[in-house]
């Protein structure tokens, strides 16, 4: 595993020379036409590397997968990896490099919303195509971006509804904790609107933000404890992103906050993030996603086998954004075959209506608003770092990227 990591880091440093390393995948059967270029725009260093490096590997795995199936339109795929280093302005520069210098046909990238907001004007200006694989706050729609993660109505709102249900513990007070940037702030604004519609007063909502990479959680966790001590069942809704989650969960465990008393539901913590923590004190805390590694079914077995054989480590975990990357990649392959072209103008309309039996065990469909229909799963963290489903929607839910709980959206045409 260590050797793998170093190999990839070197590849990242070489950037555009990734082509040379992709060469061993070439099959003699490929036509002599130029390869299709797939851009990979994920942070390989900095605070988001904990989450994003696995996504870079997922895209590389899919490139290898596509080539083993004979490529797309009979042409070989070639990955171009760049490292925006968790640096938001650098994301825009690297996006421009991918589109203008490397002339990539499609890009898979970004995790944080602030990075997506940073590259959006670049993709619109140069008419690129970006697949964004992470759940986000919505309030956005671009002809050049396809969103394969969840919109708020596919994650945040059902999760809070669950907390307020009998099974979830009938929470009456909610502590909204988040990292200080656009995704947590917008999500919490939507949740505030939702909680108000459920008759929860402002005094019963606590909201706190911390910088990226925050490590000293003792004060905030103590304040949540105090907040919970003012009567009524309390729950935490966490939009904390990146590696700040590790000290946060450690502090929850050390201060003895048990899931039975104050459950914490997280929107950005998956199996990959839990891999670095001792999860025994966290058993019962929740995560809301659209896919868990523990999901039963054949599509997931295939996905897991593909990943673990690619990464050459039978213990590596899969998570939701990886599944969203996989689904997006497969749908793009289907659309390119349907459009008989990889041109953005041809693939975009062909993508709408694409269907795929996704590893989450449901058939997902690309909707006209560039979002997917997805099931919603609520899972509890287990002692072995896995998450098991305790609640799920009966069907895939259609994404609503413009939330009805934000007053400005009332006049928007749906």
């Amino acid at each position, binding site marked *: 595993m260590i050797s793998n990591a170093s190999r990839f880091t070197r590849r990242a440093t070489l950037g555009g020379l990734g082509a040379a390393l992709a060469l061993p995948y070439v099959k003699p059967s490929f036509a002599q036409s130029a390869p299709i270029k797939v851009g990979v725009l994920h942070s390989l260093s900095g605070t988001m590397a904990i989450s994003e490096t696995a996504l870079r590997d997922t895209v590389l795995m899919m490139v290898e997968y596509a080539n083993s199936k004979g490529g797309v339109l009979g042409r070989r795929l070639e990955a171009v990896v760049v490292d925006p280093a968790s640096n938001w302005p650098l994301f825009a520069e690297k996006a421009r490099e991918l589109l203008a210098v490397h002339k990539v046909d499609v890009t898979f990238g970004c995790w944080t919303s602030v990075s997506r907001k940073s590259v959006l004007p670049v993709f619109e200006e140069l008419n690129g195509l970006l697949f964004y694989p992470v759940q986000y706050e919505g309030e956005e729609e671009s002809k050049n971006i396809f969103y394969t993660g969840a919109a708020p109505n596919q994650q945040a709102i059902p999760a809070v509804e669950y907390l307020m249900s009998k099974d979830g513990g009938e929470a009456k007070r909610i502590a909204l904790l988040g990292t200080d940037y656009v995704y947590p702030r917008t999500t919490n604004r939507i949740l505030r609107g939702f909680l108000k519609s459920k008759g929860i007063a402002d005094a019963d909502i606590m909201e706190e933000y911390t910088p990226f990479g925050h490590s000293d959680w003792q004060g905030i966790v103590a304040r949540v404890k105090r907040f919970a001590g003012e*009567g009524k069942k309390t729950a935490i809704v966490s939009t904390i992103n990146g590696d700040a989650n590790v000290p946060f969960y450690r502090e929850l465990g050390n201060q003895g906050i048990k899931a039975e008393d104050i459950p914490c539901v997280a929107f950005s913590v998956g199996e990959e993030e839990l891999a670095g923590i*001792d999860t025994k004190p966290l058993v019962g805390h929740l995560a809301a996603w659209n896919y868990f590694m523990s999901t039963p079914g054949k599509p997931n077995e295939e996905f897991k086998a593909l990943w673990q054989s690619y990464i050459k480590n039978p213990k590596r975990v899969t998570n939701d954004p990886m599944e969203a990357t996989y689904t997006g990649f497969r749908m793009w392959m289907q659309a390119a075959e349907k459009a008989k072209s990889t041109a953005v103008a041809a693939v975009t309309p062909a993508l709408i209506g694409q269907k795929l039996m996704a590893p989450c065990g449901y058939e997902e469909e690309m909707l006209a608003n560039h979002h997917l229909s997805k099931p919603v799963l609520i899972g509890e963290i287990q002692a072995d770092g896995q998450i098991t489903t305790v609640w799920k929607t009966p069907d895939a839910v259609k994404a609503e990227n413009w939330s009805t709980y934000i007053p400005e959206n009332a006049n928007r045409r749906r």
Partner: protein
Amino acid sequence: MEKLIAGLLLLLVLALPARAQDAFTTALPGLAGGFSEAAAAVEQLGASADPRALPVLRAMAEGRLQKTPEGALRVPQGDGFVDPATGQPADAAGAETVRLNNRVRQALRGALGQLQIISPDAGERLAAAEGVFRSRSAANVPLLEAALAKETVPRIREQMELALAASQLVGTEAEGKRSAIARLGSAGTTEARALLIEARIANPDMATAIDVSLAAIEQTLAIRRAAETLFQGLSLGSVLLLAALGLAVTFGVMGVINMAHGEFVMLGAYATFMVQEACRGIPWLAPWSLPLAVPAAFLLAAAAGAILERGLIRHLYGRPLETLLMTFGVGMILQQAVRSIFGAQNREVTSPAWMQGTMMLPGGIAVTQNRMWIIVFGIAVLLLVIAAIRYTRFGLEMRAVVQNRRIAATMGIRTGRVDALTFAFGSGIAGMAGVALSQIDNVSPNLGTGYIIDSFMVVVFGGVGSLAGTLVGALTLGVVNKVLEPYAGAVLAKVFVLVAIMLFIQRRPRGLFALKGRAAES
């Protein structure tokens, strides 16, 4: 009349076992059902007071209870399994673990509390009393009264009294409620306050009594909150102190602006990780990997520091700007090197059991164990640095070189060697800080970048070249930060502290503890 009651009681006692057995057998299959069914079954089993329920529920709570594909339950015992319904060995082919959710866990805690409250084991009784306290049902009142009558351990008695009060509070008996309100008022915990606030809404007629109790709790809590904020401040201060102590030597004493200081801290954290991995295979050594990591981290970081000083920094003495840029570059190289060797993913450094959880200080002040040990460690490292500088030959030579390099050289001190040792010493201290930080922060290649600014801030604020200044500076910044945090939020609190330091440096450019005399002028 008395005879009649006694007779009735006897009848009740005789009738109980028969009823209880029924309750056990009827409720048992429910455990294998859906979450709400299982929760209801757990509650029934808890109320049944049947001794057979205890092993089943305990296995369930510990995640050992199995369910066969047919829905029959199996409790692991020794190498095999038993059927809890019959108590006989049974096979468990294809069985899977019965899954829990928070609702079932909550029910389990209450039920185990009911079943274990008369357990012979004191630890179990205490946990049981806590479980019953949280499940708060009026039905538990007789159970608790009986348990209290026999209990002799004061700590368990107190928890049982609170559990009794919590149960009485949701009951119907007015007298019980009044005594419960008074008892909870003297408890002075947030849990008691939560109960009383809820009771105030349910019992408007007792509002005045509840308000008196609530006011008493508020008073205790206010004192406790102040003490806990102080502890948090000291904890943050001790982290800052550890991060800054090495810099106080390299920057404060030698005047080298070492931007790679944070990376030495990071190296120390990775050394901790490596020692932990090395100890993993040896069971008797594994719990002691953390203390063992302290010298390892010191040596690794000190070696890196010595190489850096001999290889690069000594060529740049007297050129602070070049030193700054060069060490900044070295820091980036170290980060990337670690990333290449260990990967970009964070590495897990586990905390030994004695560093996990919360400790109760007298007065009910809750402090987390890991933070407390870090404060102790910070003080120990500070004393070590003072001792090394004051009482060793190396310290003497170091002070001599700092005061007057030429005269020291004429006295036969090899100043170059002293420079290298001093820098290595400062870097080694940074490595020891890394051991502590691995317990509270992420062991990642960019661990150090988060501490470099804070470290310089502490050294400059405290006064360059003064260890006492570093101590006072670190603790002041920590406490001020934590006092401001609840009002301003974590982001703004840091900004305020930074602005305050800038203003302070304007007034006193030499920091809190300015060096006086000729040495300070040069």
